[in-house]
């Protein structure tokens, strides 16, 4: 901690302003150039049909989905890193994405032409199935939830699901292969207001609960026993945090596929810059994750327009160098 480190409200306010700037940018730019005046007209409901469609039906819901999913992934990453006490922990490390992807690929490949909601529903169910499976395995060993067992169970269950995905893809026809690979690369292109609504209903309460766990997380960072002596219901916090963070990830995967690096890099970057007090880290991750995915998706929409890049490619290509700069600047 440097003596000049700003207070938590100031840090959060800075991140909030940056997020606001990213939101303005996400609405302002896209594959089609729309002058700022016409964008304001569209927001006020005065623009022509096409501008209204572009701003209100395409860019805004997509930006909202990016913010919700980015916030969810970054907070889930923070929670898993605190819970498992392993810097490599990220939202997908416990097999949620694998379970979701197996179910999604199976539906894409073997259900033929299905209703638009079938794949997200399958992905969410598969993600929940993986959560329950990993949790049951970890909970069956010893009386307390051993996070090392949780981690190992998650990793091997994830590997098993990955093998299943490869098997399904090997047996799939070209069309399924293409759809499945596109799905697994992750994209926010299908965001509509109804999907944003569903995401908000599932994401915001989960975020609120996790943010409220900042104090127990701080104590558990010192040591689970210390936390217990200081009155933290450690087991309940661990179980609740694991399940809620996993559901958050499953909702995000159902809405937009698997988007990597947000949940790994954002919490670490914040820790490197502004310390690891969870009272800052959890809300900070929500704001920074929202901003990071929003900027990455804006780049994915515009760099190669009219072709859209997979947003996971952008999060990795941009996120990794930025992260490495932060990592190596860290004072010894």
């Amino acid at each position, binding site marked *: 901690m440097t003596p000049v480190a700003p207070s938590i409200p100031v840090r959060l306010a800075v991140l909030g302003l940056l997020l606001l700037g990213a939101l303005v940018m996400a609405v302002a730019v*896209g*594959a*089609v150039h729309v002058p700022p005046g016409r964008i304001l007209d569209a927001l006020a409901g005065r623009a022509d*049909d*096409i501008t209204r*469609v*572009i701003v209100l*039906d*395409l*860019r805004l819901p997509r930006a909202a989905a990016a913010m919700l999913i980015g916030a969810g992934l970054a907070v889930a990453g923070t929670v898993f890193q605190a819970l498992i006490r392993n810097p490599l922990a990220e939202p997908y490390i416990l097999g949620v994405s694998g379970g979701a992807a197996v179910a*999604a690929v199976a*539906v*894409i490949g073997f*259900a033929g*032409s*299905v*209703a*638009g909601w*079938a*794949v*997200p529903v399958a992905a969410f169910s598969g993600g929940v199935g993986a959560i329950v499976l990993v949790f049951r395995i970890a909970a069956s060993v010893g009386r307390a939830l051993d996070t090392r067992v949780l981690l190992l169970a998650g990793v091997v269950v994830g590997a098993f699901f990955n093998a299943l995905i490869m098997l399904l893809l090997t047996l799939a*026809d*070209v*069309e399924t292969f*293409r*759809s499945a690979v*596109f*799905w697994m690369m992750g*994209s926010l*292109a*299908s965001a*509509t207001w109804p999907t944003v609504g569903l995401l908000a209903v599932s994401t915001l309460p989960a975020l609120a609960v996790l943010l409220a766990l900042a104090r127990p997380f701080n104590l558990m960072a010192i040591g689970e026993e210390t936390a217990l002596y200081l009155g933290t219901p450690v087991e309940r916090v661990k179980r609740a945090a694991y399940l809620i963070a996993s559901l958050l990830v499953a909702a995000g995967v159902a809405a937009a*596929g698997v988007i990597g690096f947000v949940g790994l890099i954002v919490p670490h970057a914040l820790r490197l810059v502004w310390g690891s007090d969870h009272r800052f880290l959890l809300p900070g991750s929500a704001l920074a994750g929202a901003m990071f995915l929003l900027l990455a998706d804006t780049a994915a*929409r515009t760099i*190669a*327009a*009219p*072709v*859209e890049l997979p947003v996971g490619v952008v999060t990795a290509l941009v996120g990794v160098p930025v992260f490495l700069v932060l990592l190596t600047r860290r004072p010894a």
Partner: protein
Amino acid sequence: MHTCAAAAPAALLAIVALAAGCGAGGDTAPGSITVTDGTGRSVTLAVPATRIVSMVPALTDWIVAMGAADRLVARTDYDRDPGLALLPSVGGGLDPSVEWLAALRPDLVLAWPDTPNRSLVSRLQGLGFPTYTAPTQTIEDALTAAADLGRMLGDDPAAGDAVRRVRQGLDKVARSVAPRPRPTVLFLIGLDPLMAAGPGTFVDQLLEYAGGRNTLADLQILWPNLSLEEVVRRAPDVIIIGSAGLRDPASLGSRPGWRNLPAVRQGRVHVVDPEMVNRPGPRLHEAAAHLARLIHPDVP
């Protein structure tokens, strides 16, 4: 009471009938066109399409063949027709920017059968852009889609001609090879790994028209990956290679087992331009005729 109870449903029926009548009246408005696309969705155009975005190269080819290239407002990177070179490209056509498409104000969008997740088609429909999608797996798929296109272009006689030309051409090829024995044929679309045209694809059907028999007729996979061992076991009489990735056909000779294939020993391995068979377009009959000459070199 009784009359009342009877009258209420009757009144309801009348309203429903009126509403239905209104709907039907809308459909039959002068110039309005409704077709059912390959996924069972009905597509209604108020007037024949004049601003078309095609993301399916085979359908683009059909539009060009129907003399309606001037109605296209965008193409994909795969459309190489020089007449379309000046149009903006949507890219590969699989993951386009929806706002970019919307800004072109198309009155008809032709899209790939949808990936269930992205639901690009329902997206575009929901935004008010009529969107037609069709599988182009079989020859019949392609001809059905072409006939639909003809209707959406406003029953252009050139459209009917294009479809008829292909049907008659295919029948002519089939007649020319009809009396001959049918050699088994393996059609490879990729070499690393070996990927072939399985039953149910338009390439399989072209082989049929051309007087061959697909050596993979018993498989259930459209475009199966094969081991060389499987090729050796099946020992096809003729091997035809239409692979975009093929730079040096001679390199196949160095693969163990390849040299001993009957088709290789008898010089019955042929390389065709992959452009000819990579999409079921308006020159299907020419592709069939070309394949017939390779499979039956003695046919005039």
